[in-house]
């Protein structure tokens, strides 16, 4: 190791291999059987359970926890997958603290919810590790559906369509399927190549072909509509909001999403990171970029958000996670200018300060880029004729993996109903 956290500028290899491996290890390792039994026992098996209502995919949480508690995690996994085929990834990345666990009655009673996310992971990992795919495809329907984007929305839709016997072709512009599961998300939440393993497992349903291709350049929506009985768009948000301040185009300024994507795909020791890193933004992308910069060996990492703590789209849990990792968060300051040496910010009062920065990450939101279908950044309608849309690119719901899975699944059910002639 020739570099250290103190090395000025942007440098790779700031930490030893061992430190790097420890930093990017699974953040919340799977429960062992005993831990799962203890955690499962805390569930009260509520009537019309609030957790289930809070889950965008409406997983029957009390039932799957009871199945774990009675020694049948495989049955629990089937309960989960029946509602959410990416229940494995959602168990890792869902902000459960603002969904199921936030409304758990034991959170109300004791400030300590049943650990639903980790129990879900215990169940799904148990079944997936056995290589079992618990669904069987219906007889071929003869109908063909195109799905654009192999992210959570597209794959969820594709799986449900394939389940109903339809022939599905998924077009993906990136080298690997998985979307943000593969190219977004902090590495320590999807350790051991889980995103890719999950896709392989999901495809065991059969009837799904993944082809390279980007909408707009390689393929046209009109051609897809002409060649298929239905089209599903799950293309995510390809663009990033522009930062229009002096110095925003300097070479040490980078989009956080690109940094995160590169980090997911490369040897982390080889990934250069600044000594003093400044992240502009207050969402999950900002947190993931900031925390991972720290884990790569940056000496100081500061997240600066222009509004107040409670307005931040990253949850309090995520903010705590960031500060625990050594990230400093400054609230209520907007960026004014970037120089090769640092970033100038101003509070609402007009007071200014400068943070030294070898590297600056922009994480101020993503936009839909799909001319001419998407105009002015507006999101897509969930259905327009024989074209459905879901996930981050579609209107409605939060930009969460679990929401994308739900929308993909629901679109597939609608498409199926249309294709089998049940509805128009």
């Amino acid at each position, binding site marked *: 190791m020739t570099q250290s956290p103190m090395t000025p500028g942007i440098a790779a290899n700031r930490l030893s291999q061992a430190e790097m491996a420890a930093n990017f290890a699974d953040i919340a390792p799977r429960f062992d059987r005993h831990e799962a039994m203890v955690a499962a*026992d805390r569930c009260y098996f509520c009537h019309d359970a609030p957790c289930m209502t809070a889950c965008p995919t409406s997983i029957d949480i009390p039932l799957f926890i009871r199945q774990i508690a009675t020694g049948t995690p495989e049955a629990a996994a089937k309960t989960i997958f029946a509602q959410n085929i990416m229940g494995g990834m959602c168990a890792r990345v869902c902000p459960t603290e603002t969904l199921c666990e936030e409304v758990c009655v034991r959170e109300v*009673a004791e400030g300590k919810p049943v650990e639903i996310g980790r129990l879900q992971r215990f169940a799904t990992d148990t079944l997936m590790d056995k290589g079992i795919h618990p669904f069987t495809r219906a007889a071929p329907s003869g109908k063909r559906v195109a799905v654009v984007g192999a992210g959570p929305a597209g794959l969820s839709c594709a799986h449900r369509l394939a389940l109903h016997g339809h022939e599905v072709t998924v077009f993906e512009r990136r080298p690997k399927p998985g979307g943000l599961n593969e190219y977004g998300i902090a590495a320590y939440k999807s350790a051991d190549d889980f995103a890719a393993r999950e896709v392989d497992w999901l495809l065991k349903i059969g009837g799904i072909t993944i082809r390279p291709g980007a909408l707009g350049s390689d393929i046209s929506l009109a051609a897809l509509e002409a060649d298929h009985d239905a089209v599903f768009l799950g293309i995510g948000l390809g663009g990033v909001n522009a930062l229009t301040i002096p110095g925003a185009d300097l070479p040490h300024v980078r989009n956080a999403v690109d940094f995160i994507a590169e980090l997911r795909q490369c040897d982390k020791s080889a990934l250069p990171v600044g000594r003093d890193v400044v992240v502009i933004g207050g969402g999950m992308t900002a947190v993931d970029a900031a925390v991972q910069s720290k884990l790569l060996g940056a000496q100081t990492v500061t997240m600066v958000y222009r509004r107040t703590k409670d307005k931040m789209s990253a949850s309090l849990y995520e903010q705590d996670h960031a500060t625990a990792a050594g990230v400093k968060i400054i609230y209520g300051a907007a960026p004014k200018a970037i120089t090769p040496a640092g970033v100038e910010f101003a509070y609402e009062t007009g007071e200014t300060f400068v943070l030294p920065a070898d590297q600056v990450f922009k994480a101020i939101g993503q936009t839909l880029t799909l001319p001419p279908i998407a105009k002015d950044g507006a999101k897509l309608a969930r259905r327009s004729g024989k074209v459905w849309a879901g996930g981050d690119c579609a209107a409605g719901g939060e930009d969460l993996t679990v929401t994308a899975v739900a929308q993909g699944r629901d679109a597939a059910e609608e498409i199926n109903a249309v294709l089998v002639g049940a509805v128009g």
Partner: protein
Amino acid sequence: MANLTSNFIGIKSPNPFWLASAPPTDKAYNVERAYEAGWGGVVWKTLGSEGPPIVNVSGPRYGAIWGADRRLLGLNNIELITDRPLQVNLDEIKMVKRKWRDRALVISLMVPCDEESWKDILARIEDTEADGVELNFGCPHGMAERGMGSAVGQVPEYIEMVTRWVKQYSRMPCIVKLTPNITSILPPAVAANRGGADAVSLINTIKSITNVDLDAFSPFPMIDGKGSHGGYCGPAVKPIALNMVAEIARHRETRGLPISGIGGVTTWRDAAEFMALGAGNVQVCTAAMTYGFKIVQEMISGLSEYLDAKDMALSDLIGRAVPNFVEWQDLNLNYVTKARIDPDLCISCGRCFAACEDTSHQAIAMSPDRVFTVKDEECVACNLCVDVCPVEQCITMVELPKGSVDPRTGRTVGDYANWTTHPNNPAVAAE
């Protein structure tokens, strides 16, 4: 701090907490550890006749049932009486009793059902200076197949006969330990009383199979693919034991017969309940086997706090609930309560709703924002909601005052009246 000193049929101990005859009292090492921890007395694990030592299985002796949190609720065993040579036990008993004069030490006995056997064993223990004997007429497994234990306890005539022999050949206080594996506990208790027993102790364990191994298809505890019934004990049997103790305590022929209460005593509260229903002291086994001897310290402090708070002496507690243990026909049918849910304590789990709606009287309403309220016009006060609620005191039963109208029946709450005078009672109508 309340005085917990106990005098049970003349046997004194610093507190009313004894260890029951069982594995924890099999040898000097365990018994001394128990005394060091604070136990008031022990009943030494059952001795048999002189001869080749008893043989135990070398596979699992215990089976169990657990709550979902794996808290042990019931234990079952197929262990027999002591498998150590008689003289070893006698020597250790003598040594321990001399060393621990202030503690109770009672010897449990089980020998074949003939006069010579009993006469002989009583002579053998005479020299130990033990405080008394307990006749094991209770163990339901193993020894019963050889005509001992519960095989004796299930025949009142045998109980009376053996008790007489014991009183005839020994000066020691005699406790007769009863088996619950009978249809009524009263004939065995009456028989012990007639035979001259100084006290009865109950319950011994209940014939049981705790579970079935679903791979080997054998009852458990499983010995080489086979299982035999064991004796069941622990918190799960407490309700059965309480009822049997109370039946003896109130029965006209056994009223006043001292009772040593046994069966799932786990905390001071359990002990106090047994004593309130007539037990002069309690014996504990499963709780000690689950948590170790130290639990007696909680029992001592808890009972002491309780007695102080109630300004009661220990003797005031014994039997205090017995007059309130009545037959169903004596219950007040004009006592009307309604469930009340405290919205401040409610955590909105909805278990009361599910239980009432699915399995009871549809007497709980649920609002869209998960507020649960009782419908008095439907509530029969069954108490199921109280029993399934995870929050203690969140749901309580509130008595309707006399003179008010029960919205369910439309009837005014009146004075005490029971089934014996109820117009729907055919026996009343016939008069």
